[in-house]
């Protein structure tokens, strides 16, 4: 069993900027030297609602990108969807606001030691960490192709700068308002063959991850996915965020997605048992 991310620390951090991007907010937050320890796939856990808040739990957000030497020091970028009260509060925090953050948390995407062909698949705000990941993979000499999907155009997050490290980017929306009409999972089987994909990296809704895993099963493709379970603590002490995962011997146990994830080997996750008692 993995332990808590050894780099994790609790800090009070400044919001450098907050910009609306489609239906999301892009927050840049000054986290100082901690930026150097963040890896693609890691997440941050943030207190929400301020001093008199009735919300007692932190909210988890994937780190989209870090910049170790921005003019305002080490920063991280988050892409936040205003969903419920907590994320809406976060989206309302302007420049200069101070946040209580624990970062970096969780596992990171594994980076191949050889330059290989990889496919990155993102759903909704799930694309956020993929652009930072693409840069790292690109620097390793990997060829990076990317698929992004969402229900509608405004839920596609695909920043211009992000595309530099990507060889090809295809966008799917269910309502056809951007890119192809349909689901992001549709072309995957074809691409695996055509492009000789070695690794799929995915981040998005659980149903998408599960569908990708079904496609990858039976092929040689490694599937690294970033799962998203409800988390009460983010640091491994509450056991609420568990998923049924098999070990090498096939023994299934409930692993904490905040410590043994969010990035997991998709082939070990027991997708059919998620949300059921073992």
């Amino acid at each position, binding site marked *: 069993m993995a332990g808590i991310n050894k780099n994790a620390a609790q800090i009070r951090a400044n919001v450098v900027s907050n910009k609306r991007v489609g239906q999301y907010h892009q927050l840049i937050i000054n986290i100082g030297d901690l930026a150097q320890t963040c890896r693609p796939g890691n997440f941050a856990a943030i207190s929400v609602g301020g001093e008199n808040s009735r919300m007692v*739990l932190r909210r988890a957000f994937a780190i989209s990108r870090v910049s170790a030497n921005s003019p305002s020091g080490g920063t991280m970028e988050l892409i936040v969807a205003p969903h419920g009260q907590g994320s809406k509060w976060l989206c309302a925090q302007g420049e200069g606001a101070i946040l209580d953050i624990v970062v970096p948390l969780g596992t990171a995407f594994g980076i191949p030691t050889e330059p290989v062909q990889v496919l990155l698949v993102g759903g909704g705000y799930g694309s956020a960490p993929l652009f930072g990941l693409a840069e790292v993979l690109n620097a390793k000499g990997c060829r990076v192709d990317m698929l992004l999907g969402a229900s509608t155009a405004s839920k596609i997050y695909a920043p211009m700068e992000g595309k530099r490290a990507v060889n090809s980017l295809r966008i799917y929306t269910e309502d056809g308002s951007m890119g192809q009409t349909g689901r992001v999972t549709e072309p995957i089987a074809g691409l695996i063959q055509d492009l000789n994909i070695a690794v799929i990296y995915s981040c998005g809704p659980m149903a998408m991850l599960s569908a990708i895993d079904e496609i990858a099963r039976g092929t040689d493709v490694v599937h690294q996915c970033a799962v998203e379970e409800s988390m009460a603590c983010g640091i491994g002490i509450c056991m609420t965020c568990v998923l049924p995962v098999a070990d090498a011997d096939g023994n299934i146990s*409930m692993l904490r997605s905040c410590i043994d994830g969010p990035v997991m080997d998709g082939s070990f996750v027991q997708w059919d048992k998620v949300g059921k008692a073992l």
Partner: protein
Amino acid sequence: MTALDFSTTLGNAWFPAPTFTASGCASSGRELSQFFDIKAMGGVVTKSVMLKARNGRATPRMAETPSGMLNSIGLQGPGIDAFLAKDVPYLVEQKARIIISIAGETVEEYSTLARKLRSVSGISAIEVNISCPNVENRGLVFACDTEASRRVIDGVRRTIGGELPIIAKLSPDVTDLVSIAKGVVDAGADGLALINTVLGMVINLDTMRPHLGGKTGGLSGPAIKPIAVRAVYQVHAEIPQVPILGMGGISNGRDALEMIAAGASGVSIGTASFGNPTAIMSIQNELKDLLIAKGFTSLRQAIGYAHRPESE
């Protein structure tokens, strides 16, 4: 600066500070040591361990509620043998003080667990979590039944002998908490842990069904603090000689002092650590400062203070 004796005792166990983790809210203790030195707090109360390994309940296992949360973990854990082999040695090595929490489905299982603990060194006390369904009695929670509660504690007491303090952890979901408290004390408990979570439910309005995998869950956090303070006060009023580990919604030093004034000899902190990994250390420091500011020279003087007549 005034000197303050911040130590406390639960039965014959001594602790340098009165602040503990709450069972099930600190995993094995390892995770928190990323954020502070775990031997600096009063002690670690470990997650309730059962005889066999257990996978626990289906997800979702939690729901946030106003100033609180529901959980339905279902006592996921590795089982006592793996726990004693892996988790306890780590805590001992860290020089943390350790209270082991045990849980069972039958009176017999509790006794068996106690037997396994008898020879383990480095343990300060046993917390017996009796808020578990009794499989021998239609799943009725032990802690909801005076007789079943007594039998569990009696079994543990006989097995463990007289050395290790036994702390019985009670549920607030009962009509007459005091009589259950008296019953377990009669049966051999040296102390009481008050309170376990309050039974609650959240309906998910998307599915229009209970949100939690386990349907109902345990309510914890600041929302239940007034219930916990009342429980501690009620029990301390009747059996003031029995030490109480108070818990339920404690999030800052003032909350801790309320609980101590109500009659607790120590406090456990659960949900607050989820929102703030260093909560226990802040609470410990704030409590110390508050006691000093109020002119106390020992924690002991403040225990049960709220029971004194107005004139004093």
